[in-house]
């Protein structure tokens, strides 16, 4: 007898729960939808949002902290020490710029948007903007180049740097020779590299 009751109870519960479900979905037919039709309507982007990286190169002192902390190595930075005759001026927070930056590339295809690079930046020149629409057809176009030097300048600087390092090397060789002439002091500081 119990199983007979159970049989009818099951049918009753099934029909009831289906009707409850249908009434809920029917009510939802007339509630306001939550869709945002993206290209035409946009949600406001909060100020904290982490999207496209931007480096204000005139403030960058080339301290390399962002490069070191980046977990995915998406920032590539080349630096050339300033020559005695150059004066690069000050960054906006007053620290002196001691390095030429012939290359400051950020590969946004690699970037994981963690924001770790912006935190240690001493002059706060590397920031994450709220720009998020930068799809490209070429993967190379996702490498954002921030240097303010033109190629000729860069070539000149590299040439100068090369000459300087050659001179340095020469000097080092000479000192090494002199050191070799004196017995006891062999090698000295070697392997600093260029």
């Amino acid at each position: 007898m119990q199983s007979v009751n159970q049989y009818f109870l099951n049918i009753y519960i099934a029909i009831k729960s289906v009707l409850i479900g249908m009434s809920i979905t029917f009510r939802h037919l007339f509630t306001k939808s939550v869709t945002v039709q993206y290209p035409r309507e946009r949600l406001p982007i909060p100020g904290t949002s982490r999207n496209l990286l931007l480096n204000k190169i005139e403030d960058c002192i080339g301290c390399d902290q962002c490069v070191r902390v980046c977990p995915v190595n998406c920032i590539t930075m080349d630096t050339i020490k300033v020559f005695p005759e150059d004066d690069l001026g000050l960054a906006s927070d007053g620290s002196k710029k001691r390095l030429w930056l012939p290359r400051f590339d950020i590969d946004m295809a690699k970037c994981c948007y963690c924001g770790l690079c912006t935190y240690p930046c001493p002059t706060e020149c590397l920031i994450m903007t709220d720009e998020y629409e930068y799809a490209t057809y070429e993967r190379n176009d996702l490498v954002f180049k921030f240097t303010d030097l033109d190629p000729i300048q860069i070539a000149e600087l590299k040439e100068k740097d090369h000459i300087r390092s050659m001179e340095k090397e020469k000097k080092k060789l000479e000192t090494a020779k002199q050191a070799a002439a004196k017995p006891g002091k062999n090698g000295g500081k070697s392997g600093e590299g260029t």
Partner: protein
Amino acid sequence: MIQAEYYNIFVKIIDQLAVLDFLPPVWKFILASVIAALVFFHVIAIFALVAIWVERKVAGHIQDRLGPMETGWHGVLQTLADAIKLLIKEDIIAGGIDRRLFVLAPVIVFMTALAVFVVFPVGENFIVSDLNIGILYIVAISTLVVPGIIMAGWSSNNKWSLFGAMRSAAQIVSYEVPVGLAIVCAVMAAGSLSMQTIVESQAGGFWNWFIFSKFPFGFIAFFIYFVASLAEINRTPFDLPEAESEIVAGYMTEYSGMRWSFFFLAEYGNMLAVGAIATTLFLGGWQTPISLLSFIPGPVWFTAKTMFLVFVHIWLRWTLPRLRVDQLMYMCWKVLTPFAFVSIFGIGLWMTF
């Protein structure tokens, strides 16, 4: 077999066209049939275009979304765009499949969906062929979909397809029983197998429709027919043959482009068909609910009632989860079939006394 040609509106029109007088009557009949077939093909195609759009909109609004919005006003042309895309898509036939069966399967499935439309009494004089065994014809033809689906599943040489085909075959064959028994209820009440006669016997207000006039047996029969027909056309909650989360896409897994869209068209054609059958058998067909509204022509009523049932199909689909195979069979054999017998017995007593 063709008993009352006067009901065939297409034959009537062809008869009245003086231009075609030179044709012998047989040719006229064939011409009328071809025109009828073309008309119903387009009815299904256009209905599918509209119904898919409606389904997507209803689904969207139920889920607090908007659905298609981009092509045309609120996305009305979206289905058309999709259809064109499907038509110009590459026709992929994978290697290692039984090519002949693979090509034939969607044709058979769609053909059966189209063939049942012949006997629907859309209006008082609007029926392609008023067979005296109309309802038996429907039951017979709609079962032919099983070989089509099994062919699709077997020829794809894909385990998911095979699973889908086996499930579908088992499901459709089983649910033929409650469907047949529910139909018998209406046939007993009307005393005829002809669709037009069944509709005519429900004339005179909605209280004469079988769903209400033989209460509660008519209602039970209608309910059983509705639930079982959902299973016959593989709609949620009985969409096991194409259960996306279980067996990928069932027997349609290997199909793409135009062939796939034939299956899709057949699904919506079937939705329209079972809606029309339920309307004819239990909701009074083209009859007006109250005589006050009789100025509205029959075909409008027929379409409205059918569309309402189609809407309920869509509504259910976006509400319910899916049953498991054994529960599906439990429901068929242990719930629907006994209740169908009860309602047959009840209507039998009703008609006797």
